[in-house]
């Protein structure tokens, strides 16, 4: 019997081709012993949620640097709820103004990590909050 692994989907939704950050985070999570599914660029909310469902992930990490987070994130969070993914921990990284953080938290995006967030912080947050059944 193997220990239960934390599975994380990382994706870049919307029209935003800057994927250096998300690749660094994917690598950090891999090195922390997690199974990271990277789905690539330009994902629609439907694609993100469909992949998360098939992969049965514990965490969805989204990287957005385009400024469209207040449109994309609620769409993804709502769709996830609709499909029954109610146990999934949502994180977002990228360029997110501080003023938007409370609204994001309200819609179920538990962790918001801007520039300068350390790998340790992200890994620690996931280990603490990812729901393991």
């Amino acid at each position, binding site marked *: *019997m*193997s220990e*239960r*692994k934390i*599975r994380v989907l990382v994706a870049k939704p919307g029209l935003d081709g800057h994927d250096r950050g998300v690749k660094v985070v*994917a*690598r950090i*999570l*891999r*090195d*922390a*012993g*997690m*199974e*990271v*599914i*990277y*789905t*690539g660029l330009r*994902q*629609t909310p*439907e*694609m993100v949620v*469909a*992949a998360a*469902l*098939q*992969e*049965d992930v514990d965490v969805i990490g989204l990287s957005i640097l385009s400024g469209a987070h207040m449109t994309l994130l609620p769409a993804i969070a709502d769709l996830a709820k609709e*499909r*029954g*993914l109610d146990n999934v921990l949502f994180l977002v990284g990228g360029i997110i103004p501080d003023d938007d953080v409370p609204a994001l938290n309200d819609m179920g995006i538990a962790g918001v990590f801007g520039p300068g967030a350390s790998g340790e912080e992200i890994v620690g947050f996931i280990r603490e909050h990812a729901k393991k059944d």
Partner: protein
Amino acid sequence: MDLVDRLLAGDRRAAAQLVTLMEDGGPAARDAIAALYPHTGRAHIVGVTGSPGTGKSTLVYELAKAFRAREMTVGIIAVDPTSPFSGGALLGDRIRMQKLSTDEGIFIRSMASRGQLGGLARATGDAIKVLDAFHCDLIMVETVGAGQSEVEIARAAHTVIVVDAPGLGDDIQAIKAGLFEIADIFVVNKADRNGADRTYLTLQMMLDMDETHDATVWRPPLLKTIALQGEGAALVADAVQRHLLHLRDSGQLLARKKRLAEEELRRILGQGLLDRLLHQVSEEQWDSLAAGVCDREMDPYTAADTLLESFLHGLAAQEEEKGGRS
């Protein structure tokens, strides 16, 4: 409704959760297999293997599109390696298959190899059963980027596609034992690249060395593709279907299924015996034997025999005790 009932009713989330259960293993996974096993055995299982970077994922994507166009439902299990250091994994096969994510007739699952050698994960066989019971007509299993001897897939699939690409080795590589021997279909991908003709000829030469002229023997077709542009994928899909017909008509399908069943049974039995044996060995006995082998006081075969003897001895004692009580 329990997970297996939901799976049989076509619930995608149940399918996903059952694959996770198989990866975790344990009694709950066994119960689920017992419940869904009668509903398996329908799907055509197709392995896709080859060296890293030959274009396996892209070809799988194009093949999935081709089979969908033929109104088949498709399951995809894509295996990538687990880090031997951190235990983590970066599963990137979905990147090439993004556009299939939202098609309800396709189910894609990434799996980490979790330390298993041979190109598959320990739970891949059970994940195949889950997708089979989920009514996938065809299940493609993409192995980790394979070297020369990652041939486990031949023990799981009915049809094996070996993908090669230009620039990866000379004609001696092609006649070595291992990977190339398990192919039912050869694909030379990236056929627009320099050296593709040479790779093609090399494989053709290898195939021509087979001396059988028996028409009932399957000769692996050799096909060129440019998967990135979708070129040639339909021909590969044709070959996959032709191979299944050949297996059926010649009676080899049954023989192959029987062989796969026997190998699976043997593997599970071996693992079960090992688990039970190790369960009985005390830590001190294990440590002292291992130290003895390390210090050259005892050779490893003698040490293993010692453990086996004491295991069988323990079994006999248990039997006697039972007999005495009854």
